[in-house]
């Protein structure tokens, strides 16, 4: 793996151990996960033990050690969405995609995850696909929405 891009990310910060989380966030944004090689490299550059990086990488929800699909589907499980039927939405997605939260479809198209609140409670139940908000979701609407992404583009 080419480390020039990682160097570019590291260059945005002072290079201190306290910069670990922002650096990991940028790496996550660039690769959609944290590749092991990159973590080993960062460990050397920031002088943070790999074990501590692993601790941080597995502690925060923002990080993933597995590659993510083309589109990340985030199902809001906030309280407002919950009382408006988010569990049914999640279950329908699991059934349609054949994966559980934290997993990616075999074709690399969709990753499924749950989030506690996206703060757009008026639109609940809410599903965010590849950054686009789809509010007032129903199990019936899901199929059509997913088909649009499969065809390419929201």
């Amino acid at each position, binding site marked *: 793996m080419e480390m020039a891009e990682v160097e570019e990310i590291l260059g945005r910060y002072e290079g201190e151990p306290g910069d670990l989380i922002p650096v990991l966030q940028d790496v996550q944004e660039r690769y959609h996960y944290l590749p092991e090689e990159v973590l080993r490299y960062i460990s050397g550059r920031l002088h943070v033990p790999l074990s501590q990086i692993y601790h941080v990488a597995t502690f925060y929800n923002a990080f993933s050690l597995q590659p993510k699909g083309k589109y990340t589907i985030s199902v809001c499980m906030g309280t*407002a969405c919950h009382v408006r039927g988010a569990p049914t939405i999640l279950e329908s997605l699991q*059934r349609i995609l054949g994966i559980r939260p934290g997993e990616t479809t075999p074709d690399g198209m969709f990753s499924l995850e749950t989030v506690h609140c996206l703060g757009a*409670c008026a639109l609940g139940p809410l599903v965010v696909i590849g950054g686009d908000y789809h509010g007032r979701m129903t199990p019936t609407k899901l199929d059509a929405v997913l088909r649009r992404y499969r065809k390419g583009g929201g």
Partner: protein
Amino acid sequence: MSRLESTADLEALRRRLAHERDPNRRYVAVCCGTGCTASGSRDVLAAFKEEIERRGLSGRMEAEGRVDLRRTGCHGFCEQGPLVVVRPEGIFYRRVKVEDVPEIVDALESGGVVERLLYVDPTTGEKVVKEEDVPFYRHQQRLLLANNGRIDPTDIMDYIAVGGYRALSKVLDEMGPEDVIREIKDSGLRGRGGAGFPTGIKWELCRRSEGDFKYVLCNADEGDPGAFMDRSLLEGNPHSVLEGMIIGAYAVGAREGVVYVRNEYPLAVEHMSIAIEQARGLGLLGENILGSEMSFDVRINRGGGAFVCGEETALIASVEGRAGEPRPRPPYPAERGLWGRPTLINNVKTWASVPIIINNGADWFSKIGTKTSKGTMIFSLVGKVKNTGLVEVPMGITLRQLVYDIGGGAPDGEVKAVQTGGPSGGCIPRELMDIPVDYERLAEVGSIMGSGGMIVMDERTCMVDVAKYFVSILEDESCGKCTSCREGLRQMRKILTDITEGRGKEGDIELLEELAEVVADASLCALGGTAPNPVLSTIKYFREEYEAHIREKRCPAGVCRALIRYTILEDVCTGCGLCRRNCPQGAISGEPKKPHKIDQDKCIRCGICLDVCRFGAVKVE
């Protein structure tokens, strides 16, 4: 724009802006908060820009009939978004679509109003023209949110034009650090993050702490599900938070500040970054602020998505680049915080309250609210309520006023309970709706103020399911340091799952109560310490629902899947076949135009038939 070298420079700039900006000139404020953006307000904004330019109405120059366009932060009434308000008249348009824009601009030119886009008061059935007359807004007292729908959050001049950084000037010109702390103490302001610790006392403690380098932190790790007011403030008026932080830094003698904001809030991060950049450009941050002795700068730290980081010591660990695990207090962060140095940490709303207090005086502020809880509080009123959105009200308003007068009640059915305080809060039954909302009253009934999430629940909300929901979140988000929290929550979730899936047994309720007590007593931080609230409050007020699940294997609200079944009402079903075609399990059968039937063995209770039926023929029991 060049640096302002003194407070007089700032006032001169403000006078110039006042002169340039005719207060009577029309502008169209398009809400671009997260809710409205998700409903399509960015396209509406673009359409306005094009239409206004096409008709030659744009620009900030002096001329009759000119119209400005302003992209603002969250107006609060998310349910009705995208929202567009024509000011200064305050004409309120809701659910505006791109194709409505030419008609609105026509009305702007002719001085008319587009009737069909007005809000209709559901109780009177009458159209409401002005924003201030919409019941949702009429009962509010907007101090922190006052400028949210009026200023462009990405333009510091908008903030300065409405009096921004005047409190900072006042502090630098007229007040010593001790005066500022006294003012905050006298105002009675308490921490808006949830616990309600007196803000002035925290500041005093930090000021007295030894250390030549101190920090100021803004806790914007808004983790409570159903709460989004901190985000709306950062998105809609970031300078008000920044001004509060600068004043706090002046009071305690801090050199550096950090805004710790959730990574899930990209727009808040963006607007805060722009605000910091612009404040630096004007010399409101950096060396010798407004030509004074004071030097202070702020940076942003994006959170990693861990609920526990809202706890101050966990947040500090996260800023230091570590996993966000809390540590015992004392020492408090005011004594030993970030990098072991004295650190003043406050919530977004607390910081934004500071300029308001300085400008209007502690006396004025302390007259708002109740004896022990001063000022206003922002709630996000969500769930089974008609008028979902952000509301700002004086402390002491009753839950009933909030839920009915402002929220309009539940859309269908009766309100059963109100949940406040996020996963650490409790469920308050409708019998207690007349209690005034302040820190003490909420605690008395087994809940907390929290950061202001307020979730309305109706007859179709199962309270056991709600308890399980909150315990699952907390179990998931427990950092794992304390055994009582880590293991206790897991056991509680297992028992609650058993109850909701029909495996509940006698003694489960008592066991839950016992576990709850241990988790609360033996855990280090507030996550574990308050974790039992959702369970204990639902047992206290809705014990019969638990008992129905355990003894009768029945979910009265019709939510718990293992205990419900879907059936089709023969006399209502028209045999249209929509449910049959949509059922993913092929569990529905029937001849066209004849009543259909659900095969209970195949049914997975996904609810699709209920969702698609246009005749209300699907019943849950």
